[in-house]
């Protein structure tokens, strides 16, 4: 599946805000949108979800006109603050209930989906959402937002505010979702999500540019104003910016890379 954005210009009233954006998002990789606060990342998500309508240009899904209707889900920042059901099961199955599915279908689908999100139904179904840990709450919220399995899943800062274990669990689940869904993520911490086939849309002022992981890392190492990577990473890799296979921002990967370079 491929979601194509062609010449998208976003405006607020008479003011041109962002664009032209030309980008394509596919399944099978994580699509990351990166940029400064207020640069329009969340607005772009709202546009894709159909909430922001002031724009020109065209969006296609698999080369057909894309109309955001039942084929997309958008999860806002801190989604767990708006739980409105008493149990985890009720929260996650809510959208199935309002789609008039039969009770046994709802039960089967919800239990399957809870499992996908690492929340076994035997342990979690009857728990109160507000009694869970931060990482669990976040997973319940994301499970509830995606249970209709839309083709396009939009996530706004899914890892923010979680501890390291919560972040790792969640990024694994998101990676596995990306196999069959187009997953587009707005993030301030791309280094937590980046893997070798991530695709990055970088928003800088009114301009946008697409990067593969290697080009993004290489540019960021050379210019911390472009994107500030952690100091230890830049310090260790500044002599290898021209490498075609820079390691991702993890200690082990960097150690392996440096070892390989020494042996060359």
């Amino acid at each position, binding site marked *: 599946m491929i979601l194509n954005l062609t010449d998208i210009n976003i405006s607020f009233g008479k003011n041109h805000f962002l664009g032209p954006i030309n980008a394509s998002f596919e399944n099978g990789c994580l699509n990351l949108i990166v940029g400064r606060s207020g640069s329009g990342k969340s607005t772009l998500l709202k546009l894709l979800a159909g909430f922001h309508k002031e724009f020109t240009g065209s969006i296609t899904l698999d080369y057909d006109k894309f109309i955001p209707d039942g084929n997309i889900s958008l999860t806002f920042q801190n989604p767990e603050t708006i739980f409105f059901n008493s149990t985890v099961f009720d929260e996650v199955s809510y959208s199935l209930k309002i789609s008039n599915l039969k009770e046994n279908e709802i039960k089967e689908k919800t239990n399957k989906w809870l499992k996908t999100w690492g929340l076994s139904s035997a342990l979690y179904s009857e728990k109160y959402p507000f009694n869970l840990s931060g990482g669990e709450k976040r997973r319940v919220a994301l499970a509830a937002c995606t249970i209709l399995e839309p083709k396009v899943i939009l996530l706004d800062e899914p890892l923010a505010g979680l501890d390291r274990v919560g972040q790792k669990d969640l990024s694994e689940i998101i990676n596995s979702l990306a196999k069959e869904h187009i997953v587009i993520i707005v993030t*301030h911490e791309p280094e937590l999500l980046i893997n070798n086939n991530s695709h990055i849309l970088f928003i800088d002022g009114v301009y946008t540019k697409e990067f593969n992981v290697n080009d993004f890392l290489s540019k960021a190492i050379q210019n911390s104003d472009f994107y500030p990577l952690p100091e230890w990473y830049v310090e260790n890799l500044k002599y290898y910016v021209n490498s075609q296979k820079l390691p991702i921002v993890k200690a082990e990967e960097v150690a392996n890379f440096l070892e390989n370079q020494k042996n060359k």
Partner: protein
Amino acid sequence: MILFDRVSFCYNKNQETSFILKEVSFSFKKGAVNGLIGKNGCGKSTIARLIVGLLEPSDGKITITDEFNAKPYYFSGMIFQNPDNQIVGTTIGDDIAFGLENFNLSSDEINDSINKAASLFHFENMLDIPVSKLSGGQKQMLCIASVIALNPCWIVFDEPTSHLDPWARIEFWKIINELVINKTIGIIVISQLPEDINRFDNICVLNDGEIYFNDSVNKFKELKSLPYGIEFPEGWKLEKLLEDEK
């Protein structure tokens, strides 16, 4: 100095199992970045709320003394995790003014404080902008500006960098370091980001309602094991890996 003396806290006094904090004793000093870390749900935010007086300890005593500020407007301020919980004004200027207006200050004093706080966070030309137009990161910066305008003696930051972009994180730590050097405001930062640990001078590690570790960052670096849910920053891990190879 903030001193916790055998402080316990539980939400339901009748249930033994509901303890969030169990007789914890520790202290925070001004002139350093005090970090408070631990996994989700270990009691970090409870400590923050106890310090600013939003909660009262079930047992034990919390003492806050101030050796530097002669006449603070109030003692300690807090920046919540989610900025939307904290913003009350309709515009940036209104929000910074809100706390000040409640201290019965003259309008000159209020305007002076607003301008000082706004310029620290580059809001000086944005005072009339509605808060609804701000991004998540800008809202978080506004909350910090609104609290700093009150000139508190301590500020507890509850995961202040979680919604900031990486550029703003650098700015944030510059501001914090200035406050620490000037010793005007005591700083406690609650964080789960391993990268923030680099910025701490002292670290207090909380695990299941008990203090697991409370000492300097150098001593923390030497720890052999950490409680579940906490990790060393990737930079430290790399140092260790490279050392092992040698």
